[in-house]
């Protein structure tokens, strides 16, 4: 019995961790900027491409293979530093206070542009670079061989939840963010530089997306179309948890991860349906998500 449950549980936890990275940035950006970033999935896949390229470079130069772990993290920072401020300044800022239709369309335009940019820069072949995964090896858990890298993923996801919570509750920047989320005009009136907060929050969202892409690359590789697939999955998770709720996104990714793994074990053809079916059911009953509320907003 235990032998059947443990791999199932670990599989769903690792799958949940990967989904969580994609969803948490989306929900953070929505919470602070009140913009639904349809291009979020593209930033995820760009993070993956950059990380894969960096790891391949390290491998080709015969450098210390452990550098590829640094490369994973650094490529996420790199993508966030390039895309975060530029995209927020040029496009997203223009949509503040406009209708959802405009916000969705502007970011959809950005999504189309980023998808083609990736194709032009990285080509259409898929990248597969699993050095980080191989370095960590495997563990034998009660007779089931398990990849250590997946445990690292789970730990990283927990670290992100704790880290974000610390950032928001206990740092100056985080408190300023909370103030902006609670009442944008009031925050501006007491002298908070909201534009700076928006840029920071957006860049943090991009970082989390790119980190997710970078961490996912060693396990599943990366190919064109990943951005579009990730986008809608991240969307489903963020919507289930309640848009703007970070802890909600964590719980929702657990639900979706478990639903997917269960579907794979029980009825494999329903694996892709599970996340959207869950999203549909939750949204029909609670359109603001499991942890969201219609009136009160918090980070």
């Amino acid at each position, binding site marked *: 019995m235990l032998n059947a449950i443990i791999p199932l549980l670990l599989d769903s936890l690792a799958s949940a961790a990967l989904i969580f990275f994609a969803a948490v940035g989306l929900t953070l950006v929505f919470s602070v900027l009140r913009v639904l970033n349809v291009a979020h999935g593209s930033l995820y896949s760009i993070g993956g491409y950059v990380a894969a390229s960096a790891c391949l470079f390290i491998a080709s130069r015969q450098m210390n293979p452990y550098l590829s772990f640094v490369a994973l993290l650094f490529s996420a920072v790199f993508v966030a530093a390039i895309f975060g401020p530029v995209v927020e300044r040029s496009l997203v800022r223009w949509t503040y206070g406009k209708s959802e239709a*405009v916000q969705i369309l502007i970011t959809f335009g950005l999504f189309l542009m980023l998808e083609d940019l990736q194709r032009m820069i990285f080509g259409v072949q898929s990248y597969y670079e699993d050095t980080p995964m191989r370095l960590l090896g495997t563990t034998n858990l009660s007779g089931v061989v398990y990849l250590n890298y997946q445990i690292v993923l789970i730990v990283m996801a927990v670290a992100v939840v704790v880290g974000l919570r610390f950032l928001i509750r206990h740092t100056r920047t985080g408190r300023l963010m909370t103030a902006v989320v609670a009442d944008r005009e009031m925050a501006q009136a007491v002298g908070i530089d909201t534009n700076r907060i928006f840029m920071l929050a957006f860049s943090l969202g991009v970082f989390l997306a790119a980190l997710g892409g970078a961490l996912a690359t060693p396990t599943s590789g990366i190919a064109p179309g990943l951005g579009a697939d990730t*986008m809608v999955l991240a969307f489903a998770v963020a919507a289930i948890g309640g848009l703007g709720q970070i802890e909600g996104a964590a719980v929702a990714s657990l639900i979706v991860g478990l639903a997917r793994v269960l579907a794979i074990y029980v009825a494999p053809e329903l694996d892709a349906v599970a996340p*959207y079916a869950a999203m549909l059911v939750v949204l029909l009953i609670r359109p603001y998500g499991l942890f969201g509320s219609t009136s009160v907003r918090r980070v």
Partner: protein
Amino acid sequence: MRTILAAAGILVIAALPLVAPWLQFVLTLAVAKGFAALGVAVLLRAGLISIGHAMFFAASAYGVTFLARLGVNDFAVLLAVSVLAAAAVGAIVGSFLVRYRAIFFAMLNLAVSMVFYALCAKLYGVTGGTDGMPVPIPTIFGISLGEAAFKQVLFYVSLMLIVIVGAAVHRYLDSPLGHALSAVHTNEIRLEYLGIPVWAVLLIAYVISAALAGLGGAIAGFAIGRVVPDFAFWTASGHLVLVAVLGGIGGVPGAFIGAFFLELLHSAAVTVTDAWNLVVGAALIIVIMFLPRGFYGFFEREKASAL
């Protein structure tokens, strides 16, 4: 004046394949997308953005193949029944979804369409999985035509449908029921106070928009000759919204202007660059920022709906 312009536009499009036969397929596809975009535009008038209308587009195309498999082989019957099927799906889905607004409406449409997409892609035995299913060449009132002749008939029938359906949708949008849509966008509560049931107004709009998307999907299915789950993927839905917004949601011609413009530009652009999405994405952003009423804004007399 605008009627003359519209008539001239349709005549030019009807004549184009005589000059360049390869354009016929491109233009038929443009008509198909134009119908679907018109459906999206109807809802956009009420301020509701649907990132899921490709589902109705695909549902009706799948409907055609299922009917054909059952032995129905008449073009008119296939077209009519599949559009009715899309409208029926729209009525069921819409009755749940028109209670929601803004981002929740967009998300729920996305969720429903992605469930549909995933089912189409995974239920290999029923839908042929990601390979899709072939759409057979139907007979037209009992006359069986060759492929080339059928595609020609399809093209001219779809142009005729633009006129008939376009006029009907124009009448609808100009009726009190249609004007109620922009009133929902402006102030929904006031509309309720006037004794107009917003729920019914939106449900009717939803069914009409689903039927329009279905009409487009059936035409596209016949033109392409194959229906695949990607018809229903969320990026396809996004493209429909894009076409509607590029063309402008101020009137019926907007959706078709957007569709013809995009398809013709696409055919021209592939000879120069393959970064087509880059061009379209940039165009979308520029149009939203600087031309909120779309290309149709150039032809409008009075101030009409914008996003």
